[in-house]
């Protein structure tokens, strides 16, 4: 089944709603709680990144009996050096964002850690697409 979410950029008050909604759905599907945890954490990180860096975007989720694939697309500034961004602690967040407790440089590393497959395509000035896959079996 397919789910679609629109993520409002720059609104921290509703940031994380898409992840929360997906989490509810996954629980209803009876998916093992440790797997839900992996999906929730990686999607939450990706959703927050979208809000912090890319003025929002769209999320498409596809759930089948063997895996959950999440594709997050934004038209933000893009990531100039993906390898650098994958390093723990590397962050470009502004002081204001850090004050809010975000931007610790754990976003992409956490996504990698909690997903089974992570793909990041990015073009500076065009946008970023993040593909997260978590297997259910």
């Amino acid at each position, binding site marked *: 089944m397919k*789910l679609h979410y629109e993520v409002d950029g720059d609104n921290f008050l509703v940031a994380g709603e898409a992840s929360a909604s997906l989490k509810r759905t996954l629980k*209803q*599907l009876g998916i093992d709680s440790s797997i839900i945890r992996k999906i*929730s954490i990686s999607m939450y990180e990706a959703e927050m990144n979208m809000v912090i860096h890319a003025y929002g975007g769209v999320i498409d989720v596809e*759930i089948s009996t063997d895996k959950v694939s999440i594709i997050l697309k934004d038209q933000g500034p893009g990531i100039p050096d993906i390898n650098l961004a994958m390093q723990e602690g590397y962050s470009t967040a502004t002081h204001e964002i850090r004050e809010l407790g975000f931007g610790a440089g754990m976003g992409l590393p956490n996504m990698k850690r909690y997903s089974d497959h992570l793909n990041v395509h990015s073009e500076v000035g065009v946008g970023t697409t993040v593909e997260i896959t978590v297997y259910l079996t």
Partner: protein
Amino acid sequence: MYSHSVTLEQEKCIGCTDCIKRCPTEAIRVRGSKAKIIQDRCIDCGNCIRICRNGAKRAVTDDIHMIYNYKYRIALPAPSFYAQFPKAKNIEQILNTLYHIGFTDVLEVGCAGEVIAKHTYDYVKNATVFPFISSSCPAIVRLIQRRFPSLIRHVLPIISPMELAARYIKSNYLDQGINEEEIGVFFISPCPAKATDIHRPKGLEKSLVDGVLSMQDIYKVMIHKMNTETSKPIKRQSSYKGLSWAMRNGGLDENTIKSHIAVDGMESVIGILEKVEDGTLSNIKYIEALACTGGCLGGALALENPFVSRYTLKKWIEEDMAKGALDNRELLESIGQIPVLFNKDITPRPVFSLDNDMERALKMMEDIEMLYKELPKIDCGSCGAPTCRCFAEDVVKQDATIEECVFMLRKKIKDLSQVMNSLTEPLVQGENDKYRKE
């Protein structure tokens, strides 16, 4: 034996939507103008009791006369109980009145709370999975089993102060050679969840509490006897530290467990548990989560406003502190000998799961999503379900029919009337034309 402590009085229920909206596990529906509690989902938090303006939701607790089935009748008053008597002279007077209404012995749960606080500290200090979530509020443990099964391993596997108090006092009587059948231990409860807890305990095979009495019921009997002369000298067992268990932080101050969160009120607790599940609170070591706003002071069976209660209790605590530290070390030490760890696993109760077979569950979920898109999404509650989303689930699960939604019914009637109108078109065309001209 009943399985839940929250029940409905049919004749008082007018079928409004107040309770369905406030249930944290979406456990209530209105069907045929009466509320219906879905047993599997109910966590006995008592929210619906508080919200019902017709008094149709009731907590089932034990009858006070039940105490006379026992020769030795021991009352376990929690600190929250003291807060119901803002005008009492002192705590001694409250405890003394318990003897007047028929109890033969009293053990202050507060002192067991002091011991549990110490055990909690030791346990968390040596733990590796963080944060730990307090297990002393049974409604929260039930919530975790149903809504947050992934957090079961975070639940602190330590029994409640109530249970520890009962274990201690019973072992004390047994040591004196008294027959177990003659000992009755009764907890005076601020909430229905505690009543369920003794019949279906969490983390242990069997509770040693024999009965749970409602604070309201005891209060009614007590107010008439408050001024009776003291017949028995009262020796306090709990120090001010134990009393603060009923305040929100569960008696743990910053000096005991650093980096802990004390959260109360169902919605706030759910918010925190979501965060734990998302892994954003792994820097926190311990979470004291209580279902009621104001903690146990705000229990559905408490009489006094929880904020007044907090003031009253603070007053008692200050008075106790002023009197100088109560030396209850010996008592605490003997209570400390009693084992407190859970001896039974807490099992997940995934009541929200649509089907055990994922393929079928996926199909149902697709149907739910499709139907939900059609619904007005205003969550009016007229269908008897708390939200449109929940209604869509009920319809797909065949627990409700689509026409129960007034908007869908209206649409259907409109469609039907158009069909009827078009049916008449070819038959009485002349007539119809005549009306149109007018």
